[in-house]
Protein backbone atom coordinates (compact mmCIF):
# COMPACT_ATOMS: atom_id res chain seq x y z
CA UNK A 1 0.00 0.00 0.00
CA UNK A 2 1.49 3.29 -1.00
CA UNK A 3 1.51 6.41 1.13
CA UNK A 4 -0.92 8.07 -1.30
CA UNK A 5 -3.37 5.25 -0.86
CA UNK A 6 -3.32 5.74 2.90
CA UNK A 7 -3.61 9.48 2.93
CA UNK A 8 -5.49 10.04 -0.32
CA UNK A 9 -8.91 9.71 1.29
CA UNK A 10 -10.24 12.01 3.98
CA UNK A 11 -10.03 9.53 6.82
CA UNK A 12 -6.43 8.63 7.54
CA UNK A 13 -5.82 5.07 8.64
CA UNK A 14 -3.85 4.53 11.85
CA UNK A 15 -0.36 5.95 11.69
CA UNK A 16 1.06 2.52 12.55
CA UNK A 17 0.23 1.32 9.08
CA UNK A 18 2.94 3.46 7.50
CA UNK A 19 5.64 2.47 10.00
CA UNK A 20 5.90 -1.03 8.62
CA UNK A 21 9.02 -2.34 7.01
CA UNK A 22 12.70 -1.73 7.63
CA UNK A 23 14.01 1.84 7.83
CA UNK A 24 16.21 3.06 4.96
CA UNK A 25 19.90 2.27 5.27
CA UNK A 26 20.67 5.98 5.75
CA UNK A 27 18.68 5.96 9.03
CA UNK A 28 19.96 2.58 10.24
CA UNK A 29 23.60 3.58 9.67
CA UNK A 30 23.27 6.98 11.36
CA UNK A 31 21.42 5.41 14.30
CA UNK A 32 24.09 2.75 14.72
CA UNK A 33 26.77 5.43 14.64
CA UNK A 34 24.79 7.43 17.20
CA UNK A 35 24.91 4.39 19.54
CA UNK A 36 28.69 4.19 19.01
CA UNK A 37 29.08 7.90 19.80
CA UNK A 38 27.11 7.48 23.03
CA UNK A 39 29.39 4.59 24.03
CA UNK A 40 32.36 6.80 23.23
CA UNK A 41 30.91 9.46 25.52
CA UNK A 42 30.54 6.80 28.25
CA UNK A 43 34.25 6.05 27.78
CA UNK A 44 35.03 9.74 28.27
CA UNK A 45 32.84 9.84 31.38
CA UNK A 46 35.16 7.22 32.94
CA UNK A 47 38.17 9.41 32.07
CA UNK A 48 36.40 12.47 33.51
CA UNK A 49 35.64 10.56 36.72
CA UNK A 50 39.28 9.43 36.97
CA UNK A 51 40.46 13.00 36.48
CA UNK A 52 38.04 14.37 39.09
CA UNK A 53 39.22 11.79 41.64
CA UNK A 54 42.94 12.47 40.99
CA UNK A 55 42.88 16.23 40.37
CA UNK A 56 44.37 17.11 43.78
CA UNK A 57 46.93 14.27 43.78
CA UNK A 58 49.77 16.43 42.47
CA UNK A 59 52.51 14.68 44.51
CA UNK A 60 54.17 18.03 45.15
CA UNK A 61 54.33 18.72 41.42
CA UNK A 62 52.69 21.52 39.45
CA UNK A 63 48.90 21.90 39.51
CA UNK A 64 46.45 23.38 37.04
CA UNK A 65 46.88 26.94 38.27
CA UNK A 66 50.59 26.84 37.34
CA UNK A 67 50.21 24.90 34.10
CA UNK A 68 47.11 26.11 32.24
CA UNK A 69 47.00 29.16 29.97
CA UNK A 70 43.50 30.55 29.72
CA UNK A 71 44.19 32.50 26.53
CA UNK A 72 45.30 29.38 24.71
CA UNK A 73 42.25 27.48 25.94
CA UNK A 74 39.94 30.28 24.79
CA UNK A 75 41.49 30.19 21.30
CA UNK A 76 41.31 26.38 21.19
CA UNK A 77 37.65 26.50 22.24
CA UNK A 78 36.89 29.12 19.59
CA UNK A 79 38.59 27.05 16.87
CA UNK A 80 36.73 23.86 17.72
CA UNK A 81 33.36 25.60 18.10
CA UNK A 82 33.78 27.41 14.78
CA UNK A 83 34.83 24.15 13.10
CA UNK A 84 31.68 22.48 14.43
CA UNK A 85 29.67 25.31 12.86
CA UNK A 86 31.45 25.07 9.50
CA UNK A 87 30.94 21.30 9.64
CA UNK A 88 27.20 22.05 9.85
CA UNK A 89 27.51 24.38 6.85
CA UNK A 90 29.38 21.62 4.99
CA UNK A 91 26.53 19.24 5.80
CA UNK A 92 24.09 21.76 4.26
CA UNK A 93 26.25 21.95 1.13
CA UNK A 94 26.18 18.14 0.94
CA UNK A 95 22.39 18.26 1.24
CA UNK A 96 22.29 20.70 -1.66
CA UNK A 97 24.72 18.49 -3.64
CA UNK A 98 27.08 21.41 -4.07
CA UNK A 99 30.68 20.10 -4.45
CA UNK A 100 32.41 23.51 -4.34
CA UNK A 101 30.65 24.55 -1.12
CA UNK A 102 31.32 21.10 0.37
CA UNK A 103 35.06 21.37 -0.32
CA UNK A 104 35.11 24.91 1.09
CA UNK A 105 33.25 23.84 4.26
CA UNK A 106 35.53 20.83 4.66
CA UNK A 107 38.67 22.94 4.15
CA UNK A 108 37.64 25.51 6.77
CA UNK A 109 36.62 22.73 9.18
CA UNK A 110 39.97 21.01 8.63
CA UNK A 111 42.03 24.17 9.13
CA UNK A 112 40.19 25.08 12.34
CA UNK A 113 40.51 21.51 13.65
CA UNK A 114 44.21 21.45 12.77
CA UNK A 115 44.72 24.80 14.52
CA UNK A 116 43.07 23.37 17.63
CA UNK A 117 45.32 20.32 17.47
CA UNK A 118 48.46 22.40 16.92
CA UNK A 119 47.71 24.52 19.99
CA UNK A 120 47.07 21.40 22.07
CA UNK A 121 50.32 19.76 20.93
CA UNK A 122 52.23 22.95 21.77
CA UNK A 123 50.63 22.96 25.22
CA UNK A 124 51.61 19.31 25.81
CA UNK A 125 55.13 19.90 24.50
CA UNK A 126 55.57 22.94 26.76
CA UNK A 127 54.34 21.02 29.80
CA UNK A 128 56.61 18.05 29.10
CA UNK A 129 59.60 20.36 28.52
CA UNK A 130 58.88 21.95 31.92
CA UNK A 131 58.96 18.54 33.61
CA UNK A 132 55.17 18.19 33.90
CA UNK A 133 55.11 14.78 32.23
CA UNK A 134 52.41 12.10 32.69
CA UNK A 135 54.82 10.26 35.02
CA UNK A 136 55.16 13.25 37.36
CA UNK A 137 51.91 12.81 39.32
CA UNK A 138 48.52 11.08 39.28
CA UNK A 139 46.96 14.43 38.39
CA UNK A 140 49.14 14.74 35.28
CA UNK A 141 48.55 11.10 34.29
CA UNK A 142 44.79 11.69 34.42
CA UNK A 143 45.15 15.03 32.62
CA UNK A 144 47.15 13.64 29.69
CA UNK A 145 44.85 10.61 29.40
CA UNK A 146 41.65 12.67 29.29
CA UNK A 147 42.80 15.58 27.12
CA UNK A 148 45.04 13.34 25.02
CA UNK A 149 42.15 10.96 24.23
CA UNK A 150 40.13 13.90 22.97
CA UNK A 151 43.10 15.08 20.93
CA UNK A 152 43.46 11.59 19.44
CA UNK A 153 39.78 11.71 18.44
CA UNK A 154 40.31 15.07 16.75
CA UNK A 155 43.32 13.66 14.88
CA UNK A 156 41.24 10.71 13.68
CA UNK A 157 38.48 13.13 12.66
CA UNK A 158 40.90 15.16 10.54
CA UNK A 159 42.14 12.00 8.77
CA UNK A 160 38.55 10.87 8.26
CA UNK A 161 37.58 14.25 6.79
CA UNK A 162 40.48 14.09 4.32
CA UNK A 163 39.47 10.58 3.24
CA UNK A 164 35.85 11.66 2.82
CA UNK A 165 36.82 14.59 0.59
CA UNK A 166 38.84 12.19 -1.57
CA UNK A 167 35.74 9.99 -1.82
CA UNK A 168 33.55 12.95 -2.79
CA UNK A 169 36.10 13.86 -5.45
CA UNK A 170 36.31 10.36 -6.93
CA UNK A 171 32.83 8.91 -6.33
CA UNK A 172 30.65 12.01 -6.04
CA UNK A 173 27.61 12.22 -3.75
CA UNK A 174 26.55 8.58 -3.99
CA UNK A 175 24.46 7.14 -1.16
CA UNK A 176 27.38 5.35 0.54
CA UNK A 177 29.47 8.52 0.61
CA UNK A 178 26.70 10.73 2.02
CA UNK A 179 26.05 8.12 4.73
CA UNK A 180 29.71 8.27 5.77
CA UNK A 181 29.64 12.07 5.65
CA UNK A 182 26.58 12.00 7.94
CA UNK A 183 28.52 9.84 10.41
CA UNK A 184 31.55 12.14 10.20
CA UNK A 185 29.35 15.16 10.85
CA UNK A 186 27.87 13.50 13.97
CA UNK A 187 31.38 12.52 15.13
CA UNK A 188 32.71 16.06 14.76
CA UNK A 189 29.78 17.61 16.65
CA UNK A 190 30.16 15.01 19.43
CA UNK A 191 33.86 15.92 19.81
CA UNK A 192 32.87 19.52 20.44
CA UNK A 193 30.36 18.40 23.10
CA UNK A 194 33.15 16.50 24.89
CA UNK A 195 35.43 19.55 24.60
CA UNK A 196 32.78 21.63 26.43
CA UNK A 197 33.18 19.21 29.34
CA UNK A 198 36.98 19.39 29.15
CA UNK A 199 37.36 23.17 29.06
CA UNK A 200 34.89 23.49 31.93
CA UNK A 201 36.05 20.68 34.23
CA UNK A 202 39.78 20.65 33.49
CA UNK A 203 40.68 24.21 32.60
CA UNK A 204 38.11 26.67 34.00
CA UNK A 205 37.70 24.77 37.28
CA UNK A 206 41.44 24.01 37.27
CA UNK A 207 42.55 27.63 37.29
CA UNK A 208 40.40 28.38 40.33
CA UNK A 209 41.86 26.01 42.91
Amino acid sequence: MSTEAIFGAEGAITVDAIYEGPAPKRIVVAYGFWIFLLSDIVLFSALFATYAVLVHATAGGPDGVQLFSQTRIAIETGCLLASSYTCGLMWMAIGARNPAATYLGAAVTFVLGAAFLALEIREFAGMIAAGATPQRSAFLSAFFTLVGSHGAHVTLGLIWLTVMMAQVATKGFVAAVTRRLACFSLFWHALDIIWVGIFTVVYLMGIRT
Partner: protein
Amino acid sequence: MSSIRPHDRAPGEDMVPFQTGGETLSELLVYTTGFVLAIVLTAISFWAANTSLLWPPGVPLGLAVLAIAQMGVHLVFFIHITTGSDNTNNVLALAFGILIVLLVMAGSLWIMTNLDANMMAPSELMNLHMQH
Protein backbone atom coordinates in the same frame (compact mmCIF):
# COMPACT_ATOMS: atom_id res chain seq x y z
CA MET B 1 -0.53 15.10 5.77
CA SER B 2 2.72 15.50 3.91
CA SER B 3 4.40 16.43 7.18
CA ILE B 4 4.05 12.88 8.50
CA ARG B 5 7.18 10.93 7.63
CA PRO B 6 7.05 7.20 7.14
CA HIS B 7 10.24 6.60 9.14
CA ASP B 8 12.28 7.81 12.06
CA ARG B 9 14.65 10.66 11.59
CA ALA B 10 18.34 9.80 11.53
CA PRO B 11 20.46 11.48 14.20
CA GLY B 12 22.02 14.64 12.79
CA GLU B 13 19.33 14.93 10.15
CA ASP B 14 17.62 18.29 9.83
CA MET B 15 14.26 18.88 8.13
CA VAL B 16 13.81 16.88 4.95
CA PRO B 17 17.18 15.46 3.93
CA PHE B 18 18.78 16.07 0.61
CA GLN B 19 16.16 18.37 -0.81
CA THR B 20 17.39 21.26 -2.86
CA GLY B 21 16.15 24.72 -2.00
CA GLY B 22 13.40 25.70 0.42
CA GLU B 23 14.86 24.34 3.63
CA THR B 24 18.33 25.80 3.16
CA LEU B 25 17.64 29.17 4.78
CA SER B 26 15.95 27.77 7.89
CA GLU B 27 18.73 25.19 8.27
CA LEU B 28 21.34 27.95 8.11
CA LEU B 29 19.33 29.83 10.71
CA VAL B 30 19.34 26.77 13.02
CA TYR B 31 23.13 26.31 12.79
CA THR B 32 23.79 30.04 13.22
CA THR B 33 21.47 30.30 16.23
CA GLY B 34 23.28 27.37 17.84
CA PHE B 35 26.67 28.90 17.06
CA VAL B 36 25.72 32.25 18.61
CA LEU B 37 24.19 30.62 21.70
CA ALA B 38 27.30 28.45 22.15
CA ILE B 39 29.58 31.50 21.88
CA VAL B 40 27.50 33.38 24.45
CA LEU B 41 27.53 30.45 26.89
CA THR B 42 31.27 29.93 26.42
CA ALA B 43 31.93 33.62 27.01
CA ILE B 44 29.84 33.57 30.20
CA SER B 45 31.78 30.50 31.38
CA PHE B 46 35.16 32.21 30.88
CA TRP B 47 33.85 35.36 32.53
CA ALA B 48 32.42 33.46 35.53
CA ALA B 49 35.72 31.60 36.05
CA ASN B 50 37.64 34.88 36.26
CA THR B 51 35.35 37.36 37.92
CA SER B 52 35.47 38.28 41.59
CA LEU B 53 31.88 39.52 41.53
CA LEU B 54 30.39 36.08 42.15
CA TRP B 55 30.37 34.07 45.37
CA PRO B 56 33.47 31.87 44.84
CA PRO B 57 32.12 28.53 46.20
CA GLY B 58 29.14 28.79 43.86
CA VAL B 59 31.19 29.31 40.70
CA PRO B 60 32.03 25.62 39.95
CA LEU B 61 28.34 24.73 40.15
CA GLY B 62 27.52 27.64 37.85
CA LEU B 63 30.21 26.49 35.40
CA ALA B 64 28.73 22.97 35.42
CA VAL B 65 25.27 24.35 34.68
CA LEU B 66 26.65 26.49 31.82
CA ALA B 67 28.49 23.47 30.37
CA ILE B 68 25.37 21.29 30.49
CA ALA B 69 23.36 24.09 28.88
CA GLN B 70 25.94 24.38 26.10
CA MET B 71 25.92 20.61 25.53
CA GLY B 72 22.14 20.90 25.17
CA VAL B 73 22.57 23.70 22.62
CA HIS B 74 24.95 21.51 20.61
CA LEU B 75 22.56 18.54 20.73
CA VAL B 76 19.56 20.59 19.62
CA PHE B 77 21.06 22.99 17.07
CA PHE B 78 23.97 20.94 15.65
CA ILE B 79 22.84 17.32 16.02
CA HIS B 80 19.14 18.26 15.63
CA ILE B 81 17.78 16.16 18.47
CA THR B 82 14.13 17.13 18.90
CA THR B 83 11.13 15.99 20.91
CA GLY B 84 9.33 14.92 17.74
CA SER B 85 7.92 11.41 17.44
CA ASP B 86 10.34 10.63 14.60
CA ASN B 87 13.18 11.28 17.06
CA THR B 88 12.04 9.01 19.89
CA ASN B 89 14.66 6.33 19.26
CA ASN B 90 17.48 8.87 19.15
CA VAL B 91 16.30 10.50 22.38
CA LEU B 92 15.92 7.14 24.17
CA ALA B 93 19.45 6.11 23.19
CA LEU B 94 20.71 9.49 24.38
CA ALA B 95 18.82 9.17 27.67
CA PHE B 96 20.37 5.75 28.28
CA GLY B 97 23.82 7.17 27.49
CA ILE B 98 23.29 10.03 29.94
CA LEU B 99 22.13 7.56 32.62
CA ILE B 100 25.35 5.53 32.27
CA VAL B 101 27.48 8.70 32.24
CA LEU B 102 25.84 9.91 35.45
CA LEU B 103 26.24 6.50 37.12
CA VAL B 104 29.93 6.29 36.19
CA MET B 105 30.80 9.84 37.27
CA ALA B 106 28.64 10.19 40.39
CA GLY B 107 29.37 6.61 41.46
CA SER B 108 33.14 6.98 41.11
CA LEU B 109 33.23 10.28 43.00
CA TRP B 110 30.91 8.99 45.72
CA ILE B 111 32.90 5.80 46.31
CA MET B 112 36.29 7.53 46.25
CA THR B 113 35.11 10.24 48.67
CA ASN B 114 33.80 7.55 51.02
CA LEU B 115 37.10 5.67 50.81
CA ASP B 116 38.99 8.81 51.73
CA ALA B 117 36.64 9.53 54.63
CA ASN B 118 36.90 5.95 55.95
CA MET B 119 40.69 5.94 55.90
CA MET B 120 40.83 8.05 59.08
CA ALA B 121 44.56 8.37 58.52
CA PRO B 122 46.78 11.07 59.96
CA SER B 123 47.03 13.91 57.52
CA GLU B 124 50.59 13.03 56.46
CA LEU B 125 49.68 9.43 55.74
CA MET B 126 46.61 10.74 53.93
CA ASN B 127 48.76 12.93 51.76
CA LEU B 128 50.98 10.00 50.90
CA HIS B 129 47.94 7.96 50.01
CA MET B 130 46.56 10.70 47.82
CA GLN B 131 49.81 11.43 46.11
CA HIS B 132 51.28 8.05 45.26
